[in-house]
């Protein structure tokens, strides 16, 4: 059963502190310092950004402990790292070295094709990706303390993040108008725990913070997902695959804070150099999609 106990309060507490901010993918201590200097509220330490994972292929695993530790030593902001779906031993390693948040991520090659990590026993909080409300609530049932849209990582294309955000917020709105006796059938349809379905129906939001990730490449992209209800944004390949990462990072930080002020978004969109190239997601083969990983 989902419980807002002391442990969950601390896990969600850190997610609350990240709200209104930008979490940036970094692969080296130098990139981490650039991100911090630009105003990132946290960094995600990984070995390859999703765009490179997509290009180079092979098995994508948790980053090397050395890289993560070097990045932790380089900055004072929280450091997150990714574990493979279902790979609880990678998660144990990440907890042992003291990362601040674990992303059980579809960007890495899944280690288990049926089960996600049971996140409750961990002291470190987890964030998980979701494409719709059912997926989000299953992850929360497993103990995730933050949900993010999956989007399509490494694509530089916002269309999938928008689809997922609209799906989650739309399905939440629908839940709030159901009668109580209709919630069991809805829980069955969503494949989600009834207790959490009831909580969402009563409160009209997820019981954990809801961030957006997967394809954010410009200040206007950040503004778009914030206006659609995201509470903070993750930027993966979008920053360090652009022509002027420091400038773009700072611009996305500003656009996230002032997302509802078009003149500020316009101002920080000026003279940014080239954005990452991007992929038309509809041209991708079904098996090339990262978002379909997760169950």
């Amino acid at each position: 059963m989902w419980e807002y106990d002391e442990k969950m309060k601390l896990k969600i507490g850190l997610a609350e502190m990240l709200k209104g901010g930008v979490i940036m993918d970094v692969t080296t201590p130098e990139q981490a310092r650039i991100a911090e200097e630009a105003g990132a509220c946290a960094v995600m330490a990984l070995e390859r950004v999703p765009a490179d994972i997509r290009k180079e292929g092979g098995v994508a695993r948790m980053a090397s402990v050395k890289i993560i530790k070097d990045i932790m030593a380089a900055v004072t902001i929280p450091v997150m790292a990714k574990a493979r779906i279902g790979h609880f031993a990678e998660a144990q390693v990440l907890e042992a070295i003291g990362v601040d948040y674990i992303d059980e991520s579809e960007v890495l090659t899944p280690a288990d094709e049926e089960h996600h990590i049971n996140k409750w026993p961990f002291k470190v909080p987890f964030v998980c990706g979701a494409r719709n409300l059912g997926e989000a609530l299953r992850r929360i049932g497993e103990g995730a303390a933050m949900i993010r849209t999956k989007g399509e990582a490494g694509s530089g294309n916002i269309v999938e993040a928008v689809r997922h955000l609209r799906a989650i917020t739309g399905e939440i709105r629908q839940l709030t108008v159901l009668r109580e006796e209709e919630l069991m059938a809805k829980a069955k349809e969503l494949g989600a725990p009834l207790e959490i379905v009831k909580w969402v129906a009563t409160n009209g939001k997820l019981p954990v913070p809801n961030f957006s990730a997967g394809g954010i490449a410009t200040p206007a992209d950040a503004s778009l997902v914030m206006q659609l209800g995201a509470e903070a944004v993750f930027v993966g390949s979008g920053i360090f695959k652009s022509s002027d990462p420091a400038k773009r990072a700072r611009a996305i930080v500003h656009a996230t804070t002032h997302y509802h002020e078009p003149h500020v978004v316009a101002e920080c969109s000026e003279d940014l150099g080239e954005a990452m190239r991007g992929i038309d997601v509809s041209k991708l083969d079904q098996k090339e999609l990262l978002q379909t990983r997760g169950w």
Partner: protein
Amino acid sequence: MKNGGKRIGILALQGDFALHARMLDRLEAPWKLVKHVPDLDEIGGLILPGGESTTMLKFFGEEGWGEAIRRFAAQGKPLFGTCAGTILLASEVLNPPQERLGLIDITVERNAYGRQVDSSVRYGDCPELTDHPLEMVFIRAPIIRRVGAGVRVLGRAEGLPVLVEQGSVLAATFHPELTEDETVHRYFLRKV
């Protein structure tokens, strides 16, 4: 609780400003999110929320916030910082040293308990505010290493000062906004 119609501003550059708004709603105190310097002219008191102090400082560096908030404080208007907000208000910051407003004479050490795995819920005492033990949530919290002569310690947890006050400035290293306990916010509203 009515406040003589004086709105409380909540600095909303980044962090848990929405939780402070939720707390002020419960106390029926009108509030306004503060995102630009001119917003300061429309409020009677200012809350600096939890979040990442380095992120908020980027905005401070670019938009003249430091001078504006110091001017706001010089008018005797009250300020209240939690966690990152307290780091911004302090007169000295360690681990590492960084820019600050210098509006309360304390030295704070950032991330002094450790990383997220060392975050904790503790119960502390604030005898002047309440006679019940106060639930205090510490998230990657700072520790107050030095308290200046003009600063009063209002709350302690495990021997360490965690809630301090100097004139119109109130600062907590924990997050009352993450709990259901209204004591600290109620105390701040009395200052406005």
